[in-house]
């Protein structure tokens, strides 16, 4: 292999780098090859190994909790969402940050795992693969049924009221909750679809109960928001009689503020997301506690809440460090496992 072959093979492995970084790395390599008098693989390693070392040195490890770009400090994500990022951003109790970069687009979204920890629903390290695997099947089915049920109910109400819906319906709301934009009644169908599509997305078979629960939770909150938006529109056209024409709502104080239903439903959507994820996780936790013998009152003499535990029984050298076998917890005779 000559210099050019070596460089070409390294170049082929550096596709992930920016063109400036790649060019600089390849220029440096060309200089090194001149200095070494040829591609000595005993010194440089194989082209693939050399390329890996360059990539490691020039790229940051991909942290699924971080956005790819942060212009002016605002996170912007343009990669297609995957399940690792879905979990790391929507529900990661280990990460204490309440806001995480949005899964797609600019700005932030709520890390519901941190919310659950703040509300003392979970401890940060409660959720692991064992716990997720222990979530009862019925809880998994129920979690996935929630978005379906909410969006199906909304669709049902829409279908039942369809004949009485006027041709023009509100499609936008003022800050005060009064209609300020109008459109055809087909927009109601579009609003319903906003709830139905995520509900169907949550039914797709994905590996891992964690991913399934987070998908269900996100779909459930989308279904709640869609249902609230539908309810606001249906209530407006019912209360306002047979279709006020565009513009009449702007000055009429008698127009009801039904649009306020949409912001009012935001906390409900959040609570739904939390419930759909946390209730099954807690069921899984209880199953693990039962299996591991911690749910009873064993060890009731355990120390108080000020961070005392087995570790305080002499971690600072009081115990002889050469004693074998070592007991990790002198108070508890044996390992329950």
């Amino acid at each position, binding site marked *: 292999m000559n210099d050019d072959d070596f460089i070409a093979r390294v170049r082929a492995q550096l596709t992930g780098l920016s063109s400036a970084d790649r060019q600089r790395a390849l220029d440096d390599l060309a200089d090194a090859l001149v200095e070494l008098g040829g591609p000595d693989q005993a010194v440089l390693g194989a082209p693939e190994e050399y390329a890996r070392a360059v990539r490691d040195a020039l790229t940051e490890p991909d942290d699924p909790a971080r956005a790819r770009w942060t212009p002016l400090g605002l996170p912007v994500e343009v990669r297609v969402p995957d399940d690792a990022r879905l979990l790391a951003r929507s529900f990661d109790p280990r990460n204490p940050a309440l806001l995480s970069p949005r899964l797609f687009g600019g700005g932030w979204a709520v890390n519901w795992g941190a919310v659950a920890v703040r509300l003392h629903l979970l401890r940060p390290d409660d959720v692991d693969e064992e716990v997720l695997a222990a979530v009862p099947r019925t809880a998994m089915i129920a979690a996935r049924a929630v978005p379906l049920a909410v969006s199906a109910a909304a669709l049902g109400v829409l279908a039942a009221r369809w004949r009485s819906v006027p041709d023009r319906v509100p499609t936008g709301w003022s800050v005060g909750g009064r209609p300020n934009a109008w459109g055809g009644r087909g927009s109601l169908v579009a609003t319903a679809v906003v709830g139905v599509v995520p509900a169907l997305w949550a039914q797709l078979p994905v590996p891992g109960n964690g991913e399934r629960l987070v998908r269900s939770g996100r779909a459930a909150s989308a279904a709640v928001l869609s249902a609230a938006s539908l309810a606001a529109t249906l209530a407006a056209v019912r209360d306002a009689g047979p279709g006020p024409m565009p513009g009449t709502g702007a000055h009429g104080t008698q127009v009801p503020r039904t649009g306020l239903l949409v912001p009012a439903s935001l906390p409900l959507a959040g609570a739904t997301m939390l419930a759909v994820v946390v209730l099954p996780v807690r069921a899984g936790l209880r199953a693990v*506690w039962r299996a*591991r013998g911690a749910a009873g009152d064993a*060890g*009731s003499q355990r120390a108080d809440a000020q961070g005392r535990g087995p570790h305080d029984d002499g971690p600072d050298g009081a*115990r002889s460090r050469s004693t074998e076998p070592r007991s990790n*917890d002198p108070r508890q005779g044996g390992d329950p496992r």
Partner: protein
Amino acid sequence: MGRDDRVAQLRKGVLELAILAILDRGEAYGVQLVELLGRHPGLAATAGTVYPLLARLDKAGAVHTRWLESPSGPPRKYYRLSADGRASLRASTASWRELSRAMNELLEVQP
């Protein structure tokens, strides 16, 4: 990568060894580990750093976990070293000593 990120990367590698060393002295739960690390100012770390490291150690089989009744609230997850973790601690300790001796020599201010 900024300077702060580099320092964070450097500490992350060391924190893992620090956690292994603390767990070698006895089992502990998450918040307690954060507190025990905090007793050494150079090693103070947030829960947001420690919990992911614990998850990684658990996944790698370096720690065993068990749930123990807590006087305040639901059962807590306790971590302790596995045989693998102890072996990894021994190996890492040896390389740490070697590394820190070399680095001290290298960084020492020449008179």
